[in-house]
């Protein structure tokens, strides 16, 4: 992901705002490290508020960028941002002795964040040495030569060492694509059903028939989600006063009659279609940008 962000804030009014230029950042730790190292600062409380401002500005700009951001990244960013914000708030308050539990918790949160950051930085630096090693290792070419015919004639009979069945099992294992195991999450990703869309279908059907049973109205529904969506649409339309429910007895047939206009736009709600995200790691599988 390449992002170049220009952000002006009044937080740093004295210097007339600042801009953030970051390339190829990879998660919140990565970003924090970049911010800290760009200011050539120790990870100290003094630098915290400046770094916090930049971090938050970065998150705002991500939001504003229109391309949105991924849930798993977003939650990580938010956790880090919230911790930073807490720490910044503590900086703004008059300094004094640690008085209560909350101050202690704040200090602990800072230590934990820094510890994780230090750990990440350690592996990032190691990764650089790995890269150097691989680059160097690629420059050594091994001597790989066939045995001289006079010598290969001396070789004892080769021992394959396994029978045909075992041999086939090896082939099967080698030929099977090496794909990391993957927990299917398709059941968590039911195709989204839009209440607004179903609402339009319901209005259309009712205008045509004037009166329908709920059973008929959902007879062509592919799954339960559609049935639920149409029911929600009915409730919303009822609230707008364009239809009437009749149910002779409890749990009996639900009859719906259209009382609204013959033509024209019916206001369609979108309150049911606002995405709700599950805070579940598995639900975001495969949606990472690496």
């Amino acid at each position, binding site marked *: 992901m390449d992002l170049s962000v220009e952000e002006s804030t009044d937080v740093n009014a004295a210097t007339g705002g600042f801009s953030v230029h970051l390339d190829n950042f990879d998660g919140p730790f990565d970003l924090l490290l970049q911010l800290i190292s760009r200011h050539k600062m120790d990870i100290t409380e003094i630098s915290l508020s400046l770094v916090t401002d930049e971090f938050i500005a970065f998150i705002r700009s991500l939001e504003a960028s229109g391309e949105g951001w991924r849930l798993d990244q977003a939650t990580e960013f938010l956790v880090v941002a919230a911790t930073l914000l807490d720490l910044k708030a503590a900086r703004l308050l008059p300094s004094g002795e640690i008085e209560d539990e909350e101050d202690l918790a704040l200090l602990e949160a800072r230590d934990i964040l820094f510890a994780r950051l230090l750990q990440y930085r350690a592996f990032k630096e190691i990764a650089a040495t790995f890269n150097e090693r691989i680059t160097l290792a690629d420059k*050594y070419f091994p001597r790989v030569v066939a045995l001289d015919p006079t010598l290969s004639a001396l070789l004892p009979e080769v021992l394959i060492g396994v029978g045909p069945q075992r041999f086939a099992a090896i082939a099967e294992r080698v030929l099977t694509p090496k794909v990391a195991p993957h927990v299917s999450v398709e059941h968590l990703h039911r195709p989204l059903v839009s209440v607004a869309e179903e609402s339009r279908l319901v209005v259309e059907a009712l205008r045509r028939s004037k009166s329908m049973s709920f059973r008929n109205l959902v007879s062509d529904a592919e799954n339960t989600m559609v049935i639920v969506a149409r029911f929600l649409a009915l409730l919303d339309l009822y609230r707008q006063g364009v239809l009437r429910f009749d149910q002779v007895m409890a749990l009996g047939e639900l009859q719906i009659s259209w009382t609204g206009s013959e033509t024209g736009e019916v206001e369609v709600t979108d309150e049911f279609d606002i995405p709700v995200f599950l805070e579940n790691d598995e639900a975001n599988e495969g949606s990472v940008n690496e």
Partner: protein
Amino acid sequence: MSNVEIERSIEAILMVVDEPVSELTLAQVLEKTVEEVEMALARLETSYEDRGFCLRKVNGGWRFYSSPEFSSAVEKFVLDGQQSRLTQAALETLSVIAYRQPVSRARVSAIRGVNVEAVMKTLVTRGLVEESGLEHETGAILYKTTSYFLERLGLNSLEDLPALAPYLPDLDGLDEILDSLTD
């Protein structure tokens, strides 16, 4: 058999092998002790210092390699084996696995602060990382590096990995705190 004869015999053998040979195998063939063979190998290693080739121990075995300074000349002959480069994300993930193995994907993810699923797949597909049983408590799949990983890094064994200590400040109990956090 004199020291020089041991050295010359080792040279003669390594000139015909197509895969790395361990000190033990050489010792058995030459009817010498492993120590004698090790010393001979060390002397040979030094004697090639100004040559266009060298002797290296990678992944537990010895063989001849061309010297890296002359790789550009060699590359004109050896078109094969040009490996595609690993991304920064793959390198970072690989280094976490190398130092924390066996390790679950969730833990690697926690240390890097991002979802590592796609990167882990790439590393497994490239043969650098493989499964290594299940974590006792959680049942999560554990991963470790392969012997091909050692070859690619030109390492003899995992013990030759650079120490993590200089990179990771030795704060008292840091590892324990981190463990409890990332579990």
